């Protein structure tokens, strides 16, 4: 049989590289669009790109703290979450968090400060310009992502309330509401979720409160309407859907330490030299990558934050 040579492919017929690389997004978008047509609605956070119904955040200031690493997709960031208030499976928050009502929202500020009170989120948002900060996020389960958060420095927020000299730590709490957060009917953790930082950690310029990601209002499954982001610590320190901030003198007991003190401590700094009892912390899987990569001390933010822990035994204070 004679095999005819195939004609050369014309330049115009070649898919541009950028489009080719994004082919899955198109397939996903086509699928989502078809599903939306079929059901007549687009489920929140299910779109392949951003969520078309989400409110956009304007005038985002670029931050010099941002990494230039490749960001994880909106889908990665919004469909793979640990947020046990909505279920234990990583897909549960995206499926169930629609029951959360992030507006109106207020935060109760109390404890060792000059200006305690209950503050409306709408007012808080007027206090600070919003920034975009692209941070690495390292989960204690040994996976990581790169996420473009939108928010403001935690330090600016803290200073507003004029903490006293007795304020050595800050304790934060998540909403406790069995109807909005059905996972709280299960005794998986002691609710509400609690987290804390030492005052110098809270005042560190890298620590931030996020109210959005990818230039849009924070999706419910990512901790709407306001959450903590501390990029040099394991992800569980980043408490979500915050309703209470308390300035305290003693180190607060955070939820995971309360649950399993042998596995999770107060500091929870990313540390490749201190293994979790059940898995290694030396390496991590960056979501979307085939090979594991080495985990960096303080998640690569050591130059900025290592001095906070000078003289401390981080094996003991894990």
């Amino acid at each position, binding site marked *: 049989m004679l095999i005819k040579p195939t004609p050369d492919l014309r330049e115009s017929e070649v898919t541009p590289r950028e489009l080719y690389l994004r082919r899955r997004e198109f397939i996903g978008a086509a699928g989502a669009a078809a599903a939306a047509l079929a059901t007549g609605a687009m489920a929140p956070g299910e779109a392949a790109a951003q969520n078309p119904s989400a409110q956009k955040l304007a005038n985002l200031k670029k931050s010099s703290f941002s990494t230039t690493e490749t960001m994880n997709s909106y889908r990665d960031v919004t*469909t*793979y979450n640990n947020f046990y208030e909505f279920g234990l499976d990583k897909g549960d928050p995206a499926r169930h968090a629609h029951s959360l009502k992030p507006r109106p929202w207020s935060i109760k500020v109390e404890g060792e400060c000059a200006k305690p009170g209950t503050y409306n989120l709408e007012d808080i948002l007027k206090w600070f310009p919003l920034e975009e900060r692209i941070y690495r996020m390292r989960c204690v389960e040994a*996976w990581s992502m790169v996420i473009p958060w939108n928010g403001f420095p935690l330090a600016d927020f803290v200073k507003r309330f004029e903490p006293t000299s007795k304020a050595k730590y800050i304790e934060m709490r998540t909403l406790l509401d069995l109807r909005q957060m059905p996972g709280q009917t299960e005794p998986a*953790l002691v609710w509400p979720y609690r987290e804390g930082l030492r005052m110098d950690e809270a005042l560190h310029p890298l620590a931030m409160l996020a109210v959005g990601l990818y230039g849009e209002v924070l999706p419910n499954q990512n901790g709407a309407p306001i959450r903590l982001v501390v990029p040099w610590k394991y992800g569980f320190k980043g408490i979500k859907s915050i309703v209470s901030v308390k300035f305290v003198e003693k180190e607060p007991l955070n939820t995971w330490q309360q649950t399993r003190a042998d596995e999770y401590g107060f500091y929870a700094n990313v540390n490749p030299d201190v293994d979790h*009892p059940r898995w*290694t912390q030396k*390496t991590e*899987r960056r979501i979307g990558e*085939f090979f*594991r990569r080495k985990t960096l001390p303080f998640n690569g933010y050591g130059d900025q934050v290592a001095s906070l822990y000078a003289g401390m035994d981080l094996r003991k204070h894990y």
Partner: protein
Amino acid sequence: MTETQIVRRVIKPIVFLAALQPAGWLVYNAFWGDLGVNPVETITNHTGIWCLRFLVLTLLITPLRWVSGLNALARFRRPIGLFAFFYGTLHFMTYFVLDHSLVFDGVWEDVVKRPYITAGFTAFVLMIPLAVTSTTGWIRRLGGRNWNLLHRLVYVSALGGALHYFWKVKLDTTNPIYYFAIVGLLLAARVWKAATKKRAVAPAAARVAPQA
């Protein structure tokens, strides 16, 4: 068709196709790029849980035979056991190749230092001699009594698998406890059967082929 023919030509192919479904699910979803945000995790969990399920099924067959009197069930014990080994191998290879990129040191450190990996690895390694000696030729070579004795290692594998699952879970141990309970029940059934048989059969008339 005789009963043997029905089992061989109709039921066996159906069981085989059904047992391949979990693998088919993986291939299908991998092809469509639909294994979730963390595909390695998805594949690991999927192959692991199916290995454990097939181990439970293997242990279920003999008690089911006692209860139902359907001796044809015995023909499915080896194939189902081999499917457990098949999914166990996929599970281990996912961990070794995809998760640890064939770096032996990392795997060895896990096996030595982390109890849940120790349990899972032991469970898997103990299945290897069982898979190797699963042929009729090996039954003949070892003799029925020795072969049955050797294949009791599957009890250890099932318990090891359940323990591996229990220790691996971060918070909600409900499912691992179910698996533990089922494996425990199936093993207890064997102990009970052996105890009652000893009482019923006079010691002089010991049976030749003990049931595994």
